[in-house]
């Protein structure tokens, strides 16, 4: 059993978070490729070597880099529509994606950052092959920011907009295969300063708050792999250890707890904790990756002009903070905390309000639960991918609002709609054409001949009209008759 009563304050726990979010924009940061990552099969593979780059004397061990790279050959998988000559390092970058830039600036504003009057794109040297160019393009969008958590200011040291790296596919005998479709997707990195005086659970909440604040822009991707965090952990007597690639926010507290345990054990044994980078595994434990790297090796990206922020900021809308919206959903729409939470996990959190405003006759909780659970249920049970665009969902809720379909039939109708059917076609195929008053009365009368008990009667009638009538109206009709 793990000690639950660890006193993290006494241990001098210090944590720093680096949280990466992919932005949900159509195009990549420095070219016009699609950022959708839908293609499965590569159309070509390009073979490349990377070479050490000499820098100012004495700083980099070129010889060691040379040996490392001599034994590695990189293979880049090219995907249609999702990689072009820019990803292949065969064409200079285009101008930065304006939408991504705006979203990043919105995020910087939401975190109360200082924004430079001119932004410079930098090249950060990376030689693991994850960037075809040998560097990652990155720019500081804001710095010296903060946000409040439990009455304390959490410092945000910097917010960067950068290109995501290519994802590794496989490695065999020094041949490393990368997929180019992820390379270049706009990525925002939010770095906190040192966070002290909090429990690991609270630090996880802080990370979640960062996610919520950034999500206020409506442009944060939530899929697995679209959010990644690095966690820096140290305790008194230990050392700063960087844990890379924590894939889920909900793993953060576990990763911190395990790392504190690991450092404590080393200290107990009288061993020295090494400054190092460790990789996070799925169970929250970590493994050694490499010694902690020195200062970033950065120099200017000369192919892209500096960006003046003044004019962009003039017309920049600052979105409502997500926390405020959550409060509103609770008060105005009477959604429960758990419903809000599951809605947050979907792509429809903001869309919910558009629907609730458009269709006042539908209970907001019905809209929220269709969006957060019915659609998920179809995915899970039918093993299909929900492809319904927002306008198709509007079509469904409009029918619900008009009384053409009923909430009990939501699962079946949406399933059909996902197969490409219109609401009308779905209703016809399922035999769910709404019953007229007369038809309902007829069913009640017929059933009454067989079932005498009123409670049972309601049950049987409801099962007969299910999905074809408004239940509360049917009950009222039975009540009236008896």
């Amino acid at each position, binding site marked *: 059993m793990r000690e639950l009563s660890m006193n993290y304050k006494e241990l001098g726990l210090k944590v720093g978070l680096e949280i990466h979010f992919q932005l949900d924009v159509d195009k990549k940061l420095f070219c016009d490729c699609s950022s959708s990552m839908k293609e499965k099969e590569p159309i070509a593979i390009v073979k490349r070597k990377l070479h050490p780059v000499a820098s100012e004397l004495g700083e980099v061990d070129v010889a060691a880099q040379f040996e490392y790279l001599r034994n590695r050959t990189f293979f880049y998988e090219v995907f249609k529509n999702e990689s072009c000559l820019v990803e292949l390092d*065969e064409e200079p970058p285009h101008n930065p994606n304006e939408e991504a830039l705006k979203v990043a600036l919105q995020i910087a504003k939401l975190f109360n950052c200082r924004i*430079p009057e*001119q932004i410079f794109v930098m*090249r*950060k040297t990376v030689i693991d092959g994850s960037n075809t160019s040998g560097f990652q393009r990155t720019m500081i969008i804001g710095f010296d920011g903060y946000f409040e958590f439990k009455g304390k200011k959490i410092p945000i040291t910097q917010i960067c907009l950068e290109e995501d790296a290519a994802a590794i596919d496989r490695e065999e005998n020094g041949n490393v295969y990368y997929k180019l479709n992820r390379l270049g997707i706009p990525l925002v990195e939010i770095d906190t300063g040192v966070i002290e005086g909090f429990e690991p659970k609270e630090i996880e909440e802080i990370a979640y708050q960062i996610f919520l604040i950034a999500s206020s822009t409506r442009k944060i991707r939530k899929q697995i792999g679209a959010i990644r965090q690095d966690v820096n952990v140290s305790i008194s007597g230990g050392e700063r250890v960087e844990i890379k690639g924590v894939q889920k926010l909900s793993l953060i507290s576990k990763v911190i707890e395990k790392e504190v345990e690991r450092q404590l054990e080393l200290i107990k044994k009288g061993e020295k904790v090494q400054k190092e980078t460790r990789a996070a595994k799925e169970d929250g434990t970590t493994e050694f990756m490499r010694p902690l790297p020195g200062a970033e090796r950065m120099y200017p990206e000369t192919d892209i002009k500096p960006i003046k922020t003044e004019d962009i900021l003039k017309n920049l809308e600052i979105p409502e903070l997500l926390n405020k919206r959550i409060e509103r959903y609770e008060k105005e729409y009477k959604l429960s905390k758990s419903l809000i939470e599951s809605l947050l996990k979907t792509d429809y959190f903001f869309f919910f309000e558009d629907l609730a405003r458009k269709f006042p006759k539908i209970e907001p909780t019905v809209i929220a639960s269709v969006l957060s659970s019915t659609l998920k249920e179809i995915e899970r049970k039918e093993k299909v991918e929900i492809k319904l665009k927002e306008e198709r969902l509007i079509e469904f809720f409009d029918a619900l609002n008009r009384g053409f379909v009923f909430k009990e039939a939501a699962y079946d109708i949406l399933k059909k709609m996902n197969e490409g059917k219109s609401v009308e076609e779905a209703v016809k195929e399922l035999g769910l054409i709404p019953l007229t008053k007369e038809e309902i009365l007829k069913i009640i009368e017929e059933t009454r001949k067989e079932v005498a008990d009123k409670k049972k009667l309601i049950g049987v009638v409801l099962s007969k009209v299910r999905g074809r009538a408004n239940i509360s109206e049917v009950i009222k009709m039975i009540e009236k008759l008896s």
Partner: protein
Amino acid sequence: MDIYEILKNKGISIGDKIRVDSIEGILMPRTEFVENDVIVLKMNNGYNIGIKFRDDLKIELIEKKKEQKLEKQKHKEFDPSKPTVSILACGGTIASKVEYKTGAVFPSFSPEELIEAFPEIGEIANIKVRKLFDLFSEDMQPEHWKIIAQEVAKEIESGVDGVVLMHGTDTMHYTSAALSFMLQDLPVPVVLVGAQRSSDRGSSDNRVNLVSAILFAAKGEIAEVVVCMHESSNDDYCAVHRGTKVRKMHTSRRDAFKSINISPLARVNYFERRIEYLTANFKKRDKSRKLKLDTNINPNVGVFYFHPGSKPEFLREMSKFYEGIVIAATGLGHIGINPGNDKLAKNFLPVIKELIEKGIPIVFAPQTIYGRLNLNVYSTGRILEKAGVIGSLCDWTIETALVKLMFVLGHTKDMNEIKKMMLTNIAGEINERIEYEL
């Protein structure tokens, strides 16, 4: 108001560590895109930002820039068992160092620096390096070609086994054509090489290209002027192209250089350090052969690009500046002569005749880039050829036709002689057989 001037008066210059309000960093130089009132600062985390100057901005000097001492590298010993290659640098930074502290990129030219950057070249050959000039490709002039040819001749006369020319890529094929005409009866290879990706990045094609070029100069059997660059987007092979048949065919790709209307002569396997020959049709290496240097050229030749809407008057105007004109003609070698007296069409025939009569040769080259001219097929072509246009049955590129005409006009002004020389294959610029698979 230039904020950098104000800072200078305060004793702050580029490279100094300063504090602007609460932000610490190194004062960086400004590029042409940054306005006068913006301070560019490299923050401690390595990022550059621009801060607009205001009167209430507090700027303090923290530390003056420290001068960096460059360590001298040891000179590599001469190894008599290895071939010797001379590298002449004409520009284009095929090797450079990055100073991450300031973000500055410095070109490297000494043999020590080159061997430090590319240790494997020392394993291939003894290396001599000389810088001729440091020019952007687009600043290269015909007069520079003469200097390069003379310097290459000097190196060859000193007995080296091959010469490598580092050159910017944009006009590399003009230089390679010019050298092909100027350096006749070469005993050893002369290899032009460049890079399409800047040398400060780990992905630069400079290494594969330079190593392959040096290997070819040292051991290649082809004693001609050639261009050695990436064969495909992969970092595995370099193609070796004949200097008169090569053309830059892409703005940015590594494999931008292609042989036109002919196969590359050879390819270099970078991984195995092996040369594969793709033809036997070349001049073989022979160190006893005597090089013939002929740098007589007349740079007053221009190109007229014919297009719908182009004006005969402009072609006439060009003759005030040039003593010979290459016309980039359409299709098999056509420009408008309006045989049907169309109201809108233009007739170039009078001006063509007029210029040729004045002693200005008119040479055609194909706009299509690929394929051979043939002025016999349509009456337009036949009429133009009768008027004295040169180029029927030639498959040269526009650039090679231009350079050849400069070379020819450096030797004669007689129109018959010009025509004869132009149609004589001097340096493989005319390929008699275009094979199907090309």
